[in-house]
């Protein structure tokens, strides 16, 4: 649904997929593999204002807690409710049903500063 090739990335492994005025946010395949065994996602509240780079969500696996940063600035307009019953959806479908939240962007040009899929891939191959 949110194909890797059509997403933009942060070095910290979040992806953003532009859907009209919203950016859908998730974590990369690489990140879900590294985190593994996701057991809880502490999602932001709908209505919260976030700045690009702000820590706004926590993904808990059995062994660790990972902070998730907003790739762009704006208002949280939706969160993936399915994750409260099935957090492992992020492991199974990082680029599809395992999306985290949607941000209504205040400055859509911020997307241009994010990494393309190829540029992101290069960062994780180091």
């Amino acid at each position: 649904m949110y194909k890797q090739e059509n997403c933009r990335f942060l070095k910290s492994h979040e992806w953003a997929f532009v859907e009209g005025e919203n950016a859908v946010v998730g974590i990369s395949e690489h990140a879900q593999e590294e985190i593994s065994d996701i057991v809880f996602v502490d999602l932001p509240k709908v209505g919260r204002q976030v700045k690009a780079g702000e820590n706004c969500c926590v993904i808990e696996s059995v062994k660790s807690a990972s902070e998730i940063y907003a790739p762009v600035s704006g208002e949280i307009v939706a969160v993936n409710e399915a994750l409260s019953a099935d957090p492992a959806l992020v492991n199974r479908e990082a680029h599809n049903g395992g999306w985290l939240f949607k941000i209504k962007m205040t400055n859509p040009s911020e997307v241009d500063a994010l990494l393309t899929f190829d540029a992101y891939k290069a960062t994780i191959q180091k």
Partner: protein
Amino acid sequence: MTELKKTALCSACEKAGGKMVDFHGWLLPVQFDSILAEHKAVRENVGMFDVSHMGQIRVTGKDAWKFLQYINCNNIKNTVSCGTYSHILTEQGTIIDDAISFCLSDEEFLVVVNAACIDEDFAWFEKQAKNFDVTVTNESSKWSMIAVQGPKAVETVSSLFPSIPSRFCITEITFDGAKGYLTRTGYTGEDGVEIMLPNDKINALWDALLAKGVKPCGLGARDVLRLEAGYLLNGADADQTRTPYEANCGWVVKLTKENFIGKAALEAKKAAGFASKLTGIVLKSAGVPREKCKVFFNGEEKGFLTSGTYSPLAKGIAVGYISTDVPVGAEVEVEIHARRVPAEVVKTPFYKNKV
């Protein structure tokens, strides 16, 4: 950074897909494919852990038992093949390490200690041994060890080792021409064995167990399993600032024993009472409690967690040092990432099997 120590099974673990991490200076697998899958294997079937980093100290001589009685707070069994779990204490009655002493003969014992404590334990053994007719030998670098754990563990290893001792006992084994030991012990809350072999023989055992379908498991699963079973992680849940009473292990202290290191201090501290005690906590809503999280009762800070995890059996579970005025059953709050999550004080263990 100093180079990490590798066990004789390091390459085998990497080959099996182990994600290797630094554990007290040792390069060990935190997980293979999935902590949850490994946990399930041990609770329902059989899994194995490379525990070669753990230490072995041999105590021999006329006073071997007397010496162990003196440096342990529990009564060490001196019946051949029996093992005893105990704590080794400072003069102040605080915990240096927890260890199992196995009786091999009237004048010979094998003590299995935690990896992170080997040097300190051995120095302590040597220091205390001066007043006894004993020889203590640190054999830790000679032995490798695999823990095979789970309801199918004994059945699985009995084809390799036909004589499996009863719970907490030890037996000598021969494998691939070499002598070793097999103990009916483990740190998972399941039945199982731990097998010690010389370093150059351990890979053959690992391969034999793999061929029998035993699942390789890492430190991540081990931590969930031991916490569910209510076992201490020395260095996190216990250290030299805590007595066994505070660590919720009062049962290992035998004050009726004639004398042992820390006895006088423990008598005095027990009479004075303890401000806090290692206490079990279960979250009542989603989240994962971790070490260092603060615990609140009626809005007041009452302590902090020393171990916490997600348990597939009981969800968010933890232990921590909580003020003794907070009773079992109390509704408390655990602060996780600046969020206060409702929780309940419970008795440990969180999981109990008939082992």
